[in-house]
């Protein structure tokens, strides 16, 4: 059966292209911003469900003008339409405020499945997904590493503290992807061309509320906790002896 699917994505700095000057605490971005890695897995899962079962996939993202690039990419990968909730400075609002803006968009559309990442690459607070579900009154399941859907029932697997869990839940549901869920596809030239013809709506929220009572200090460089020791080009038996000596000296064994 076809599904109405929503993927929620965040645009984040490319963490592999990010340098921190330890002396000043300044962050230097040398690459283009990307779709946050867990969200890219959620998007890929959403596209795969659409390809297998049919339906419509809407991708939604909140953020500044540059978010258009992330949404274009999502359209190129296979989403049908995109909504850009325009917030010029995401860091000026908190997770719950973002969740309210996203939930407002979803509340007016029919939806069977909402997919998003477990947490973002930059803030890593992991709050927006569960909060959107709570605001919409739908069940939520996170840390997903495998997923199948049949009719109205989603079967989920995830690693928990007690071992590998299998869960079942009826749609509508919000699912949060672990990064190992799949390997997000590359953007093809054909996809990129097709994306230009797909609808991308920009919504400007009138008021943005943020939680009172919480204020965030400027990020700073944590104190170093000590470096590691590298054993290079040493025969295994020699390396083992050195490792055991090192552990013994530190009274770790």
């Amino acid at each position: 059966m076809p599904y109405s699917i929503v993927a929620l994505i965040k645009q984040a700095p490319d963490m592999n292209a990010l340098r921190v000057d330890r002396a000043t605490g300044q962050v230097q971005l040398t690459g283009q911003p990307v779709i946050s890695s867990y969200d890219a897995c959620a998007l890929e899962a959403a596209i795969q469900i659409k390809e297998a079962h049919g339906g419509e996939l809407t991708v939604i993202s909140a953020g500044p003008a540059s978010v258009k690039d992330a949404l274009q990419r999502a359209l190129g990968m296979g989403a049908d339409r995109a909504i850009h909730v325009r917030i010029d400075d995401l860091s000026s609002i908190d997770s719950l405020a973002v969740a309210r803006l996203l939930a407002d968009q979803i509340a007016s559309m029919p939806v069977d499945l909402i997919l998003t990442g477990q947490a973002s690459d930059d803030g890593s607070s992991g709050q927006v997904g569960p909060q959107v579900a709570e605001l919409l009154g739908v069940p939520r399941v996170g840390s997903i590493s495998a997923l199948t859907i049949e009719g109205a029932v989603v079967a989920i697997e995830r690693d928990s503290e007690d071992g590998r869990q299998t869960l079942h839940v009826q749609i509508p549901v919000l699912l949060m992807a672990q990064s190992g869920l799949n390997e997000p596809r590359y953007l093809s030239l054909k996809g990129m061309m097709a994306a230009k013809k797909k609808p991308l709506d920009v919504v400007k929220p009138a008021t943005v509320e943020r939680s009172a009572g919480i204020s965030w200090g400027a990020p700073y460089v944590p104190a170093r906790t000590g470096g590691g020791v590298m054993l290079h080009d040493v025969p295994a038996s020699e390396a083992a002896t050195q490792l055991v000596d090192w552990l013994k000296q530190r009274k770790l064994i």
Partner: protein
Amino acid sequence: MAARTGTLIVGEVGAGGLRPASLELITAAQTLEGAISALLFGAEIDAAATTIAAAGVDRVLIVDHRDLAYPSAEAATSVIAHAIARLEPAVVLMMNTTLATEYAPSLAARLGVGLVSDVFALRTESGTIVATRSAVGGRLQTDVTLRGDEVRLIGIRAGAFEKAAQQTSASPIESHSVEMSELDRRVRVTSVAAKQSSGVGLESAEIVVAGGRGLKEKASFVLVEQLAAALGGAVGATRAVTDLGWRPHDEQIGQTG
């Protein structure tokens, strides 16, 4: 309305009884002002309640129901919201387990208040709480200040605080029942495959032997397993390795784990 006082810690019970990190929340709560209450929920959790009652808390609330054996995030949220309404704590401390990463944000949305997650240091400065967490993908850290009359929700990173020790005296344990909604029952855990590992859990291990992608292939992790077994430790893995499916995600260590 009387001002909110004290701290409520939300512990968890797993297949092996009280999750050890529950006891770390007590130590974290001791850095704050006021009495410490503990909440536990689950099915047949008397033994876990007895353990936490003797670990330096002032009172323990339990919600024991067979439907809570593998609670959904929704059910957990309902239970915690009930306890907050009853106790009116100034601060609620929660864990960062698989389940807590779902219910803590849900609770914040239900109550319409903020949440600071994954906190690894806490201090009180003239009535305000300063919580330290990572920023910019773990490269930097930041101090978050929480003030005001609303309940303050904080998620605590596992391993950041010592586990509270058992004491000779124990606090009273009160049993409560909470009405579950239809939503609370919609997610069902249908099976749990117990771990095949050596039996030493990562969150309670004194020694962790961790491996990364440098091991080149999944099979090489047998070396890590052997060393961990020899040292009586647990196996850890980097995110790259868990993403590749070489190891389960709950063995992931480091700032993204």
